[in-house]
């Protein structure tokens, strides 16, 4: 589906990728994060090549360098919001656990930290998702339509979080339809017929 | 495991069945085997109802023409052996040695009075003109046995118990001897049977004239021994011998009466007698003297006379005369004995019979009695004789006796003591063409209550009527006997 895509992300960048549905935006994100392997070509994250890695190595790389945010939030239903963040923290470095509380406060969800996802609104769930993505202090955040399932206000909050997360040199790659996102992006790329423009 | 499931199912089925029928009843028979018989078709040791057994013609003395009129009907009950099973004057421990002492114990012996009562009822339902009791009414010449039997025959309150109230004999459950049937523990189990057997009951009686015949068990101890002081002492005493120390010397079947008496006396006196236990004494157990027995039986018959021998004549209706002969040997021994004086008496009575038919009744068959040949020779010359009746063998038997003037029939009836536990009806009829015939058939009692259990036990008895085929064949039971033309 993707053919001849070249992409470089700079630290501190928020890059938006737009394109018609079915053009492979999600696939691009998955490849970037090592969730899928390209048939040809190379993916490098933070100087580490993803090809030829075992699943364990990929997992380690993801843990250290990549954070994901999904359109459907994808929180584990049996865990509370805080536990979802803590879960991710397990796979990171030792100090990730200390960041959990701070992150939850940062996304302003202390009050509902113990609630299960089913009890949370879409915006709250996505904010937990963002906190989860950030807890291991990744080099890059990959977001797939992060505001797609949110109302305007929640979407704005989440977008804000994503924007601020680049302050510390993190890169953010967002696949989106949302004009609000593209408005605040540093670069906007168009995916068309399998290639980026 | 499957076995247990099967046992459970069988128990459940049995409970249902038991609830459905009465617990102790044998298969009820209506009485006359002309309507239904009892037989063990499947060989499992239990009697069931079978088909009717109509009269079969026996033509050895002439073919019997169809009957026109009944002239007389007799009921015949033989060898009831009503016994006082708790008496110390008994030797049940000899029974296991087989013949000739294998009648000293029977599994159903405590029920003898009830069996007689049921048979009397069955005979009564056939409406006879008179009842012949062909001997061995009692079992051990004891006063209480004869009294009990006569009460049952005549009607009244029968009291089978003796000694202390309740049962105290060899069949009690606490007796360790496994060769006695103990109804509380041995198969077929009938818990409480012995206690029930001791209870008084009301006997209806036969309701018609009774014609008793003297039998050896009516006058002799165990049918062999003339009673004396020693036997009386034992009978009315309080000690019952329970076992032998060693195997006794028994008389064999072919020994004479005197030899048997001697052998039994030797046993009673000898060292083989083992330990004894204490029982409650009862003076009613004393053995009657011969004269007392004859007197009581004569009284029951309503026949006057004073001779020491129970010989008498009785008319039944206008057409039949029954002559009773006393064949008991007062010296002892179970074989029959007829004296020359009795033969003379008989000759006179036959002559006085006129145109009546004559039946001669003895306990032991004449053909095997001492002096019987002389009697038979006399009968052979008397055309009035139509039949001789006897018991003692405990087996049905009907045989023709051919004589110059035609002949007569020898009719033997089985007992109540052993299987088949049947009585007999005998009917004299006139036939078309002016002749006469005899019709005879056997009768089962109705098997209600204890009498039914007695029949069940008698059938199972390995020393009893079944292995020895005392029920005999069809030609010995329900037959029409042709009589020679006069």
């Amino acid at each position, binding site marked *: 589906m993707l053919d001849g895509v070249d992409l470089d992300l700079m630290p501190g960048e928020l890059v938006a990728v737009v394109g018609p549905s079915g053009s492979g935006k999600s696939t691009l994100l998955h490849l970037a994060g090592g969730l899928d392997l390209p048939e040809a070509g190379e993916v490098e994250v933070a100087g580490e090549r993803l090809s030829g890695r075992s*699943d364990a190595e990929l997992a380690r790389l993801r843990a250290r360098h990549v954070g994901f945010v999904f359109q459907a939030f994808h929180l584990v239903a049996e865990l509370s919001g805080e536990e979802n963040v803590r879960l991710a923290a397990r796979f990171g470095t030792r100090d990730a656990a200390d960041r959990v509380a701070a992150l939850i406060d940062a996304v302003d969800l202390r009050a509902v930290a113990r609630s299960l996802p089913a009890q949370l609104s879409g915006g709250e769930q996505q904010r937990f998702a963002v906190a989860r993505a950030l807890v291991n202090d990744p080099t890059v955040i990959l977001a797939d339509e992060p505001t797609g399932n949110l109302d305007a206000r929640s979407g704005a909050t989440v977008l804000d979080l994503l924007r601020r997360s680049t302050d510390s040199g993190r890169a953010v790659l967002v696949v989106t339809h949302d004009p609000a996102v593209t408005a605040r992006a540093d670069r906007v790329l168009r995916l068309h017929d399998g290639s980026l423009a | 495991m499957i076995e247990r499931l099967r046992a459970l199912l069988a128990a459940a089925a049995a409970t249902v069945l038991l609830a459905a029928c009465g617990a102790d009843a044998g298969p009820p028979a209506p009485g006359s085997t002309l309507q239904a018989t009892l037989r063990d078709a499947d060989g499992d040791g239990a009697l069931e109802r079978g088909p009717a057994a109509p009269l079969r013609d026996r033509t050895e003395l002439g073919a019997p023409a169809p009957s026109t009129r009944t002239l007389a009907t007799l009921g015949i009950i033989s060898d009831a052996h009503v016994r006082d099973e708790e008496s110390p004057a008994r030797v049940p421990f000899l029974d296991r040695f087989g013949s000739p002492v294998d009648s000293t114990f029977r599994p159903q012996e405590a029920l003898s009075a009830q069996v007689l009562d049921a048979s009397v009822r069955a005979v009564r339902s056939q409406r006879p003109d008179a009842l012949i009791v062909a001997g061995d009414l009692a079992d051990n010449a004891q006063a209480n046995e004869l009294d009990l039997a006569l009460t049952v025959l005549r009607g009244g309150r029968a009291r089978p118990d003796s000694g202390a109230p309740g049962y105290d004999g060899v069949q009690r459950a606490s007796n360790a001897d496994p060769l006695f*049937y103990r109804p509380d523990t041995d198969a077929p189990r009938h818990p409480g049977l012995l206690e029930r057997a001791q209870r008084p009951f009301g006997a209806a009686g036969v309701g018609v004239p009774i014609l008793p015949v003297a039998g050896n068990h009516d006058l002799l101890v165990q049918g062999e021994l003339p009673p004396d002081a020693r036997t009386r002492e034992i009978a009315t005493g309080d000690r019952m011998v329970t076992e032998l120390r060693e195997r006794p010397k028994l008389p064999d079947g072919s020994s004479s009466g005197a030899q048997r008496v001697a052998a039994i006396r030797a046993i009673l006196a000898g060292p083989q007698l083992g330990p004894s236990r204490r029982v409650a004494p009862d003076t009613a157990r004393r053995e009657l003297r011969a004269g007392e027995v004859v007197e009581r039986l004569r009284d029951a018959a309503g026949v006057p006379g004073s001779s020491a021998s129970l010989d008498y004549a009785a008319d039944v209706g206008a057409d039949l005369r029954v002559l009773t002969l006393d064949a008991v040997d007062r010296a002892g021994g179970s074989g029959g004995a007829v004296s020359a004086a009795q033969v003379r008496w008989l000759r006179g009575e036959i002559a006085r019979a006129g145109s009546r038919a004559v039946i001669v009744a003895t306990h032991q068959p004449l053909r095997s009695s001492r002096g019987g040949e002389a009697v038979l020779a006399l009968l052979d010359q008397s055309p009035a004789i139509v039949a001789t009746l006897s018991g003692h063998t405990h087996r049905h038997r009907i045989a023709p006796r051919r004589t110059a003037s035609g002949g007569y029939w020898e009719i033997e009836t089985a007992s109540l003591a052993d299987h088949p536990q049947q009585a007999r009806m005998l009917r004299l009829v006139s036939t078309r063409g002016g002749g006469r015939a005899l019709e005879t058939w056997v009768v089962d009692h109705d098997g209600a209550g204890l009498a039914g259990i007695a029949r069940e036990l008698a059938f199972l008895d*390995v020393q009893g009527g079944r292995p020895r085929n005392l029920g005999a064949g069809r030609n010995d039971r329900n037959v029409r006997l042709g009589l020679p033309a006069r």
Partner: protein
Amino acid sequence: MRRALRRLRGRRRRVLTAAALTAAAGLAVGVAGTVGFSLATGYDRAAQRTDQPDVLGRFAPQRLSVLRERLDRLPNVEAISYRLEVNRVRLAANGQSKRNGAVHVVRPGRRGYGVVAGRDLGSRAGEALVERGVAEEWKLQVGDRIDVGGLGSLRIAGIALSVDNVAFPLATVPRIYVSEAEISRRFGADANPGVNLALVWLADPSRLDITLAAARPAVFGLRTEQLLTKRAVRQVIDQAAGIVIALLAVFGLVACACAGVMLAAASAAEVRRRAPALGVQRALGATRGAVVGDETLDAVLVAAPAAALGLGVGALAAAGPTANLLGFLNEVAPGSALLWPLAGAFAGLVTVAAAGAAWPAWRLNRKAVSELLRGGDLATGPAKRRRVPSGGLFGLGARFAFARRGRWTSTISALAVAGAAMLLVLAVADLLVSLRDDPGTLGRRYALTVPGEQRDARTIARIPGVAAAAQRSTVEAADSFSLTEPLRVIAYPGDHVPFEAPPLAEGRRLAADGEVEVGLGLADTLGLRPGSELAIQPAGSGELRFRVVGIVRALENDGRVVYARTARLRDADPSLGGPIAIRLASGADRADVVRRLDAAGFESSATGGATPRNRSFLGVLASVLRAVALAIGLVCLAAILQTLALTTRDRRRALAVMRATGAPPGALAAVLTGTAAALIVPAVVLAVLLQRFVLGPIVAELAASYATLPLGVGATGILLVGGGLAAIGAVAVLVVTRAATREPVAAGIERDD
């Protein structure tokens, strides 16, 4: 039908898993069912096939006419055959020989044996029939020759089977049959050796007691050695094989139940998994009935061939060892009769699979279709605000398990039943070993004896490891009425039950000096029942009387035993002595106790177990049991695998997200381990409880007619089963984790079906 096949082809991998589960269940049922059915019905079948008489009478040799005259009087008899049994005859064939052979001289009439090869004895000279056990042990065939003592070399005309004892070499006496004509030919027509065996067939076998009661007066005076009834023979044979037979029969039932539960769980899980697909069908307008029908048809199409395969393989695998076992017992294999229970099992398995699919399909259809179509992780039930315990990855895995209540419950029940069944197998295996080494079963509970007096018993009882000690006296006695060969009185000063406890058939245990328990053989011969009086003559003293309070199934001396208290026997014979019987405490070390006894000056001897002498017999039994256990283990593996796979599928997205978040494969394994633990731990606990309070007592009760069984579960058993299940769980976790991690993460995130 064609549509169904197409549907199934679309889900090939899942269909194969379900089929494998069904096949495993079928295998377990096939093995256990074959063994159980064959053994449970073996005796009855053999008795019928071999025309076993209802009563076998052994007498001193008599003239035929004498015996016939007595026995023809018996009521309820259908037929009687007579034979002469000659013992201590030298038999030799095919390089084997024995000096203690038995020759049965057979007369015309009903045989009381069945001819399983060749033909029966006829008019031809020089022929013999050989017992099947001998033929198999000595490798003889029809046509071979056998040397029979004074008869010389005879040709084997056929092979005969009789169920009046276990087979040679389990019974130590080899047996052959020759005709009376053969004896006449050899020794002359007037040799007239007499007869000493009477075979009695009853018209109504349920009235056996009536015939037995009549037999006593009928045979009085003949030297009767034994009146053996079919029910007593059956008891000997069943006990000779150990109570394992009853256990295996019950075990077959348990295996069936277990398999049924597993199948139902599997089918239900499959349907639940396909809930969204079903929802789509409903949305497209399919009726509920049609959907249920389709599901049921699918389940049947998968289950039927799998069940047939599993049953077939199981039955075939078990057939060999089972035939071997039956051969030892002189019993007959069910042959085609086995098809009925197998068909029933087949129908049962398929029905369970179908019901397992139909029921949840029916129930699922009740939910709103829209609910079914909603994607995302399915969390059943409304979200509750409850304290969810954390526990890291394991806890998460456990929570995944709990989230699907129905599946969790059914899997746990299946595992619990399987676990209980395995515990039962282990208990039985322990029993086999103990049968061989420790006579703590089949009635005899004391392991050692030392010579001594009763006062020594107190000293001995204080030795650590000794649970109880008492003097055991035996007295040979005759019954006062000479109806039976000498009987044996076994006496203890007090209660004998701690030392010997043959199972009680009727009545109760003795409690006073004047009371006794008698063996079934003696009870039959003397007509004893609880409440009867027993009169015996001990050798050298006067008559003693006792009251019978109980009847026991004792094997010793053919059941002609009496259990009593020593007091009365000692009064009659003050010199009465006997060894001290010693019962070991459970878990005691026998060697240690022996040493201590030795130190205290007592020379101990071990008591042998009342077991079959042949070790290979035990070996065959053990291998059969292991096969059954293995089959159950396979079923457990399949169940756990299935559940884990289903969980992984349900939680595909969550697991994918975890991987996306950087979870290494180890983390996934940890989660799945939590899931597996959530299944296995409660299952093990339940299994132990089930075995201890339900299965064990039921089986012990059903086998109680053969032995008093200590079917408890030891710590080793629990560890083995728990460990086994844990190992199975670990294997399952590994397999599923590998499968899960092989898939690219993206796939999990995007699709969730």
